[in-house]
């Protein structure tokens, strides 16, 4: 199988940042907060670049949906070895309500437009933890899916995927074209090096609007409230088992 791989990369709040909820409980604070590529998307990019290095695919295209700053995330993917980027411009209210359903419609449309043979995504984003985009994209395209991939092997026009599931590891063989989502142990993403960052500046990023792809961004979800998890209460020491049982009964737990 030789051809084009689409890799979705999402710009999220950096994993090391302490998240704070906005005072009006409508969301989390994003202004002035460090953002970077979603860690699972890094793993997806790495896998795509590895496939290209092994000459199993011809071109790696990095895709991101979001405002102007999403271009930085695409540049990082280019520095890791992607060949070109597509920035799907979504901003303002549309960006606030952008979710897996809209993104998967966009990815499906792009896959057809770019004649992609493989879509690799991170299994989930660390801001919403949805774990839906890969699955929805496959459904919209009616393509097979290899999700939670911890090992990917291309075998002619089929793909062998080892998946991390609750019971352990599951190995499946799927046809191409297909959608894969990357799990943690798939690979160790490379660091962007300065020479590669410089080369990445010369690579092309195309601008596309969702309307051009015929995608309607209206969300069917409305966020009502965002709040902190409850503060952890101090524990209590008791002297005997009887005391412990007594306290549990008092609290209505037993």
């Amino acid at each position, binding site marked *: 199988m030789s051809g084009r791989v689409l890799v979705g990369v999402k710009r999220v709040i*950096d994993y*090391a940042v302490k998240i704070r909820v906005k005072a009006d409980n409508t969301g989390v604070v994003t202004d002035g907060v*460090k953002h*970077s*590529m979603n860690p699972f998307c890094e793993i997806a990019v790495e896998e795509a670049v590895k496939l290209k290095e092994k000459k199993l695919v011809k071109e790696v295209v990095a895709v991101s949906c979001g405002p102007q700053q999403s271009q*930085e995330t695409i540049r*990082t993917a280019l*520095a890791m070895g992607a060949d070109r980027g597509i920035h799907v411009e979504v901003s303002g209210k549309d960006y606030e309500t952008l979710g897996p359903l809209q993104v998967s419609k966009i990815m499906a449309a792009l896959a057809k437009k770019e004649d992609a043979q493989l879509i690799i995504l991170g299994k989930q984003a660390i801001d919403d933890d949805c774990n839906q985009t890969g699955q929805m994209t496959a459904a919209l395209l009616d393509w097979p899916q290899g999700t939670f991939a911890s090992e990917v092997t291309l075998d002619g026009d089929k793909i062998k995927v080892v998946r991390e599931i609750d019971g352990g590891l599951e190995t499946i063989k799927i046809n191409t074209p297909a959608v894969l989502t990357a799990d943690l142990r798939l*690979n*160790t993403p*490379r*660091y*962007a*090096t*300065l*020479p*590669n*960052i410089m080369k990445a500046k010369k690579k092309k990023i195309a601008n596309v609007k969702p309307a051009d792809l015929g995608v309607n961004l209206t969300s069917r979800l409305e966020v009502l409230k965002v709040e902190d998890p409850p503060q952890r209460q101090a524990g209590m020491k008791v002297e005997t088992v009887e005391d412990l049982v007594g306290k549990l009964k008092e609290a209505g737990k037993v």
Partner: protein
Amino acid sequence: MWLYLTPSRRLLSLRRSLIQYRSITLENSARKAAVDKVISPFRSICGKDNVSLGEAIREQHGKDESVHRCRPPDVVVFPRCVEEVSALAKVCHDHNLPIIPFGTGTGLEGGVGAVQGGVCFSLRNMDQILNLHPEDFDVTVEPGVTRKALNAYLRDTGLWFPVDPGADASLCGMAATSASGTNAVRYGTMRENVMNLEVVLSNGTVIHTAGKGRRPRKTSAGYNLTNLFVGSEGTLGIITKTTLRLYGVPEAMVSAVCSFPSVQAAVDSTVQILQTGVPIARIEFLDDVMIDACNKFSSLSYPVTPTLFLEFHGSEHSLEEQVSTAEEITQSNEGSDFQWARDAETRNRLWKARHDAWYAAQALRPGCKIIVETKKDLLESRLTGPIAGHVGDGNFHCLMVVDPNDPDELHQVHLFTERLARRALAMDGTCTGEHGVGLGKRVLLCEEVGPLAIQVMKGLKDSLDPRNLMNPGKILQRGEL
């Protein structure tokens, strides 16, 4: 020792001990009274939740990862900014209370033990990465930032901070102990890579050793205060910011493992590789005992013989050249064929043996702890502990595995490690290449630098900390102050 004194001498010695005991007890009660007085001002400076008298917290802050026993402070404070550090230090100064800075508690020389009690300043709440200048290759960090956290932050910029001691240590703590890592042979230690420090002195004064916010790549302006504080182990001031020199992430890395028929062959290869000017990034030595321990621990199957682990950094082209030069040299010293690794996963597996050395050595005798000592001269070794080390810097760790509950063995090993350090000194070396002097090497420091230099150090200490409040009992001995 006491039995060898004559009866009258015994009486004198007993009297002296009683007087010492009494004066220590008086010291203790004076200190306890002072501690009671400062709790309230502490709380108003950094908030009630950031002052702790709890036993568990104090014990956590009285020990590090060395074999030295826990010496808990009287109280632990958690300041949130340099203004709070300064205000807290002023209070301590006014009440003559010792101040012990605490980063990640990953030191190996007992540097955070509060030998005279006092106040531990745990700096973990100050965890900001500030002022990254990618084109100038510098960044400033607070004490709560560890080296791995910094490198994760930098991962999109193509830059990294290469000094990598074993632990994920606080960078300001690394500055305080002049830490080093496995790639010092190419990138240097903290001494070469700290450009500026913000330091709070014992009386609360805040200084910037190279000027506030300044980060020149080189300077000849005034006395080198920055490097005075690097390696001062908290005895001259509390480091609250450090400005670090960054490097570009290498385009490509290759690791290799090579076995040798003898220690001499491995060392000769190392010297020759350095002589040919190969900019080797890491060159680590493991002796046969160490390799055997690693094989057992990590289920590997390296030949049980002196071994070198090498790593090369550079562009694809330069790597080819570096590796072929190094391979020629090792083969001419009867080294085995290189075992290669290029991608991150295989390289990590190759290096796993070296990184797990500590645990592998411990596993040789389950239930025992390790005292780590450095030794410069491998050739005259009569060592029984496994050896691993940064042969490129002439720096070895002899991992002495010891039963902490056996006082005889502890004593024997202690004598041994002193002989070891003295051997290093006899070869024009140092008693501590990486870990600092802390509690255990004060006597050796005197032997190393000599009484006149110690006097100068004492003079500097007196001028910066006249009341000896900054981490007392470390680096310089009591009698010298």
